[in-house]
Structures are given as structure tokens and as C-alpha cells.
């Protein structure tokens, strides 16, 4: 026998009382908490999916902008090549008179006119030449 005489003499009963309807209330309270928790989980899932969709949309937009820029460069390059080809054709067909008429005349500054040259422009070009563009 595990229990000695004294303990055996004590009736084995449940001495604990509970408030009226306690167990119904316990069930209702717990189920309400569970349903609330499920709502929170559902909302979190929706937010997560919405955030993922938004991220993908942004990525698509950024990529499209990138592709659009690359497309323009290709276009511009083609235009430039066409322009060069056109120029070469023109040159081939042109004589000396045509060349001087097509291009801006080269301004020859005679030594006597040096006083009138805009030294600001010369200084600017000097500055440009001295800058270190590597940094």
C-alpha cells in the first residue's frame, strides 16, 4: 500500500469549488482569443503578400527604366553612325568650295589682333586642360 493509514482515512474528494458557469466562460474566453489570433495571422499574411507584390512591381518598373535607357543609347548610336555615313558620302561627293560652305570658317587670329582676343576664354581652356579628371 502506498498511502499509510492516516491518508487512507481522508476521503479522496475534490475540495475545490469554482464560480458559477466558470467552465463555459473559460471555453468562450479561450475560443475568442484563438479567433482573434487567427485574424491577426490572416492580416499578417495579407500584408506580407501585398508587400511582396509591391516589391516585385517596383523591381519591374526599375528594370523597365533601365531597359528603356539602354534602348535609347542603341538608338542614338544608330543615329550617330547614320550621320557619319551621310557625312562621309557628302565629303566624297563634295568639292573644295562645298566644304568651305558646309563647315564653319576657321577664324585665323593674326598676331596684331591678339590684344583683342578674349583672354577669359583662353584661361578657361587652360584650366580645363590642367584638371585631373581621374579623381
Amino acid at each position, binding site marked *: 500500500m502506498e498511502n499509510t493509514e492516516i491518508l487512507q482515512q481522508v476521503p479522496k474528494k475534490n475540495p475545490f469549488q469554482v464560480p458559477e458557469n466558470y467552465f463555459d466562460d*473559460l471555453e468562450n474566453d479561450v475560443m475568442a482569443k484563438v479567433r482573434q*489570433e487567427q485574424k491577426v495571422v490572416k492580416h499578417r499574411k495579407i500584408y506580407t503578400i501585398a508587400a511582396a507584390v509591391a516589391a516585385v512591381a517596383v523591381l519591374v518598373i526599375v528594370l523597365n527604366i533601365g531597359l528603356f535607357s539602354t534602348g535609347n543609347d542603341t538608338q542614338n548610336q544608330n543615329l550617330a553612325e547614320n550621320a557619319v555615313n551621310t557625312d562621309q558620302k557628302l565629303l566624297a561627293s563634295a568639292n573644295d568650295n562645298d566644304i568651305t560652305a558646309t563647315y564653319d570658317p576657321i577664324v585665323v587670329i593674326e598676331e596684331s589682333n591678339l590684344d583683342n582676343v578674349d583672354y577669359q576664354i583662353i584661361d578657361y581652356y587652360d584650366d580645363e586642360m590642367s584638371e585631373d579628371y581621374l579623381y
Partner: protein
Amino acid sequence: MPQDISDQEIIELFGKERTKEQGFNLLVKKYKQDIYFTIRRLVFNHEDANDISQNVLIKIWTHLDQYRGEAGLKTWITKVAVNETLTFLDRKKKVLNIIDEEGYNDYVTKVVAEDRFLSSDKIQQLLQEAIQQLPEKQRAVFTLRYYDEMPYEEMTKIFGGTEGGLKASYHFAVQKVEEFLSKH
């Protein structure tokens, strides 16, 4: 009747998203009283038992998908209830700043005398006072064996350790309870 629902049925319903809540509701109906009284016998106070019972049921809702069936469902539920209660009791002792056995026993006597949800039967009150003076884990071993007549083999799934160790723990608990009752 909720007791007629099998544990297998509860687990199957809980395992599917669309019937998860239904399965859990059946579990609550079937086990709410067992959970509550397992806890109440350890903490004595109804308000504390209510708080812990709600926490235990929410924990079961969260973790039942991890139940692997090594122990019976009731054993698994009891394990969750006992562990939550022992954690609570440990925290409460620190909050109450009880530093010695005498201080704790005085506290228990006061609590038992003032409780409004306890039978007026004096012998039962004395027995509860004796049980409340046991160390927490020993108290859990005692109440599960004495009130629920839980087999020691099942108790090893709740407490760990060996059947022999649990038998010894129960034996010492009985001695202490008897000593208390004989003095009062």
C-alpha cells in the same frame, strides 16, 4: 458528450486548416476540467488557476501541430499544464520574496484559510494545506498520483527521470503529508 470524442478525431480535425478551430474546440470541451483541476491542485488559488489554464490552452492551440503521439494526448496536455504551472510557481515565489520554508508555510496557511472557493470540510482544508507545503515538483508528483492515480510509467513522460525516482518522490511526499495531518 465531449468525452465521447476520440483523441484521434480531435487531432485529425485540428490538422486541417478548415477544421482546425472545430478540432480545438472539441479538445477544450473534453479537457478543460482536467486541465483546470490539475493546475488548481498545484496553485490552490482559483484566480491563478484560471490565468494559467487560459495560457495552457492557448499554448496547446499554438503547439498541438508539434504533437507526435509518443505519449497519449491527455499525457501531453498534462505535461504542458504541469510545466506552465511549475514555471508560474517559481516566478510567484520570487515575486513574493519568500526566502525560507517557514515563511512559505505561513503564507500557505493564510491562503488556505482565506480561500472562498474551498470546501468547508476541515479535513480537506488540512490536506490541502499539507499538499501546498510540499516543494513544487514533489507536489505535482503527489497530486497526479494521489488524485488521478497516474501510472509511474506515464509520469516519466511528464517529469522525465525513472519510475523508481518518481516512486521515491511520491513516498517522501506521503510521509510529509501524514506528518502534517498527525500534528494538526
